């Protein structure tokens, strides 16, 4: 399937992907119209393979026919191209470096650990829960009493993290633990983010995500 020739901005994505959600939230924040193309990750499309030959993964943003890959690279690209509205990265170099550092920390730590939360059982699950709480507590210290990670405005680090907040309920149900009890500030932050149109529009229903992760568990033979 070829991308619509008339669409200036095309997004190759998967509804449930937290990485894809980052990109969609950024596009919503900027008010950018785009054509969404849901991908089949088992029978990958020619367009996906040609647009991302290195990883063959989503999300891929195709702008004027040119592909941009890797979610945080895409979000920075969106921020720089549509710079007139809702800046996601701060203006000052040190603050920008801090934002990049924490988004990178989230990339390095959160995905791998949260995958273990829904994939593992027994001792491995207990370890995953311990690791997860440590990571979230580190983020909570960084957030402090700020409204968002950068201060008063919703930005790059919030975009990087919030799709994972969207899965907290599902993780709690599957792994049987309570995140808010140990990290109330992060949960409060997540709820503040959910009040933003961009976030509430893009993040799927808790129940849908829970069922999706259960389906993946079954598919991978975890039960």
């Amino acid at each position, binding site marked *: 399937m070829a991308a619509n020739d008339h669409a200036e901005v095309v997004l190759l994505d998967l509804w449930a992907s937290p990485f894809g959600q980052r990109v969609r939230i950024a596009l919503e924040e900027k008010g950018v119209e785009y054509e969404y193309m849901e991908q089949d990750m088992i029978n990958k499309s020619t367009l996906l393979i040609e647009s991302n030959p*290195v*990883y063959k993964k989503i999300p891929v943003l195709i*702008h004027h026919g*040119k592909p*941009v*890959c*890797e979610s945080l*690279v*895409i979000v*920075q*690209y969106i921020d*720089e*191209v549509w710079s007139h509205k809702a800046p996601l990265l701060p203006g000052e*170099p*040190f603050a*920008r*470096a801090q934002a*990049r*550092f924490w988004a*990178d*920390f989230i990339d390095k730590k959160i995905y791998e650990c949260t995958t273990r939360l829904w994939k593992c059982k027994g001792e491995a699950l207990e370890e995953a829960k311990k690791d997860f709480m440590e990571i979230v507590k*580190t983020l909570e210290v960084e957030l402090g009493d700020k409204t968002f990670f950068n201060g008063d405005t919703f930005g790059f680090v919030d975009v990087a993290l919030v799709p994972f907040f969207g899965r907290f309920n599902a993780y709690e149900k599957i792994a049987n633990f309570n995140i808010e009890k140990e990290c109330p500030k992060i949960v409060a932050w997540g709820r503040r983010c959910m009040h933003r149109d961009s976030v509430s529009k893009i993040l799927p229903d808790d129940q849908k995500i829970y069922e999706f992760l259960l389906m993946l568990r079954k598919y991978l033979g975890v039960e």
Partner: protein
Amino acid sequence: MASDDVKLIGAWASPYVMRPRIALNLKGVEYEFLEEKFGSKSELLLKSNPVYKKIPVLLHGGKPICESLIIVQYIDEAWSGHSILPSDPYHRAVARFWGHYIDDKWFPALTGISRAPTDEAKKEAIEQVFAGLKFLEEVLEKSGAGKPFFGGDTIGYIDIALGSHLGWLRATEKLSGLTYLDESKTPLLVCWAEKFSAHEAVKCAMPETDKLVEFAQMLKAKFSAYIDALSPSITLFSSLNYICSL
């Protein structure tokens, strides 16, 4: 003035530390290099990078910036002069993508060769390294358009991200007998490697291949009980793993 005070915490053998050194040199920024003592982490490092406790850390006016490619971007934005990242958003995205690829896939494949549990896995890791170099050869061809560097006429972000690994790549080739930068496979990269290494901003920061080989042998002697069974090339990769954990 405090805001002009620039320090870099690092170690001579670390490819990641080389990156901000090259960037600072390109910008003509004077800085104090604080070499970490082998085998221990200083109070300053632990205080400046509490999350990872790793080098490099740039201290600008006392404020710490961590993670090598994030530091490079910071240097590019904080000081004017030589542009490290391209000005066009699309080309910036391409540069960031390849920087990420080098750190996320290519370099782990390189160091993964020593950790491969089977011959099959080792073969796969080696193939991944060559496949990565092939991708990068194509990038150089496309973005270079006959120019010497990924950044065109001058050193840019991808040059720094990849070039910082040349020292250890050469040291590995010397000891293992396996040629990674092969003229018959990636001729542009071979040419690029020479030009990059000879650049004013790189020469003083690039560790000598023989010194890296010596360092790896020293590490092997120190931890000989642990790595006795490993072949020379594997020893080097283990050393590299060790360096990158600093």
